[in-house]
């Protein structure tokens, strides 16, 4: 049977007007949507409060699902563990023997570091998280990469604060609601994190690539010194992220940098820690540059500009 058409309304004036007004409302809705979109492009924070309220509303469901998610991951690990338990156990015993001695050495080094810093008069920056939270939701169907964490203004979370897991940086707080906060993940195409190679401090900018990896762009052009396996940490420039937070490891070289895999994988992290903005924790709020993500020249041009070394 052909579906009933909604346009043939018969002789009823009321039905005719109703249908007509429906179409008028539909086109008006389309235009209203476009207008809202334009406003959202001009002022990115325009609807932050509305979104904060919405994510507060959905937070209880998110908390429940997050607890279940952690349980499901544990179940997978338990089932997998039956197969590999013996070999893993033996290997871990060897590793823990080594790690114990390394830990003692590291404690001695940390102590020496503290003495040397005191001699130089360098300021100690406290590294205490503001809050611990669960990741309760993420924009899994959008090309933007946001996550919602279960701590907000009531827990002292503020815009700009870095968010990390024990295994690395995962992003920074973008919008704050009452009991939730929206985090811009480092894998978002509009997130730019100033990083440096852990070994020797080669500076680079890590921009999200949209598919779970980061695009590392070297600040100094020239020969590409990167190698797969290089570990990158935050450099602290910009004042948002504390220097030395681990970010990513290089997996593949490109012409002007590398593709890197994020180490603090939010998918497997049960809890995340939210740290204060570094420049404020260090008592230098005047050093806080505007957030690096919004500077337009950092975005890749559609056509890559001719590189300087290509000329000679």
């Amino acid at each position, binding site marked *: 049977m*052909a*579906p*009933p*058409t*909604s*346009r043939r309304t018969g002789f009823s004036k009321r039905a005719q007007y109703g249908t007509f007004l*429906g*179409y008028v*409302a*539909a*086109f*008006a*809705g*389309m235009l*209203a*949507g*476009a*207008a*809202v*979109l334009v406003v*959202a*492009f001009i002022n*990115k924070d*325009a*609807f932050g409060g*509305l*979104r904060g309220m*919405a*994510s507060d509303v*959905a937070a209880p*469901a*998110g908390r429940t*699902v997050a607890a279940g*998610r952690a349980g499901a991951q544990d179940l997978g690990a338990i089932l997998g563990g039956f197969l590999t338990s013996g070999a893993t156990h033996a290997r871990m015993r060897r590793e823990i023997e080594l790690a114990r001695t390394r830990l003692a050495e590291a404690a001695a080094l940390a102590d020496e570091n503290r003495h040397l810093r005191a001699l130089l008069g360098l300021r100690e920056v406290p590294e205490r998280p503001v809050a611990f939270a669960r990741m*309760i*939701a*993420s*924009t*899994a*169907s*959008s*090309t*933007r*990469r946001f*996550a*919602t964490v279960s701590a907000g203004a009531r827990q002292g979370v503020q815009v700009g604060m870095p968010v990390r897991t024990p295994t690395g940086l995962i992003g920074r707080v973008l919008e704050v609601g009452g009991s939730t906060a929206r985090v811009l993940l480092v*894998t978002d*195409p*509009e997130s730019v994190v100033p990083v440096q190679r852990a070994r020797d401090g080669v500076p680079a900018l890590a*921009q999200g*690539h*949209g*598919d*779970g990896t980061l695009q590392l762009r070297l600040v100094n052009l020239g020969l590409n010194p990167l190698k797969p396996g290089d570990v990158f940490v935050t450099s602290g420039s910009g004042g948002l992220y504390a220097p030395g937070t681990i970010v990513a490891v290089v997996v593949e070289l490109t012409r002007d940098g590398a593709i890197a895999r994020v180490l603090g994988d*939010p*998918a497997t*992290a049960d809890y995340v820690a939210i740290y204060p903005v570094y420049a404020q924790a260090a008592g230098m709020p005047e050093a806080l540059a505007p957030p690096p993500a919004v500077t337009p020249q950092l*975005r*890749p041009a*559609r056509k890559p500009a001719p590189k300087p070394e290509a000329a000679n």
Partner: protein
Amino acid sequence: MPFGLGETRSINRVHSPLLARAVPWLTVALASVVQTLPFIASAPVAPPLGFMVLLGWRQLNPGLLPVWAGLPLGLIDDLYSGQPMGAAMFLWSVAMISLDLIEQRFPWRSYLLDWAVAAGFMTGYLVLAGIIAVPPGSLPLIRVLGPQLVLAILIFPLVERFIALCDRLRLLRFRSIS
């Protein structure tokens, strides 16, 4: 009179008007929220469930959601999906209007044609939403959206199956005494 004698009371089983009207709106809104919950994704992998449920209702039961339903439902989706505000409001409104045009053009349809139309709409929606959300060129769009699109097209019949279930729930009959 005592014991209600003399009155004619009938026991009937009727639809609940509230349920019959609210279920389509609620399922689309819930799908918009649910698509953010199951895992913390570092790439767009989940199908756009809110849009798929809207498409499904529109195709399985045309006339149930009015043409302008894209605006309020898109607003809810925008609050949760991570797209810039207004993206779904605009794209869903456009989708509802164009689905209406397609229905006028092809009144006789088969299931395969419906599925193909839905696949076309999902492709257009994902690509346009991707272009709106991030500056073009900063993202390998095909590589990022490809898996999501294939998953969405393959999962669409299941979503329709779920909507058919909700449609039966919508017309559940309750005992009423009048």
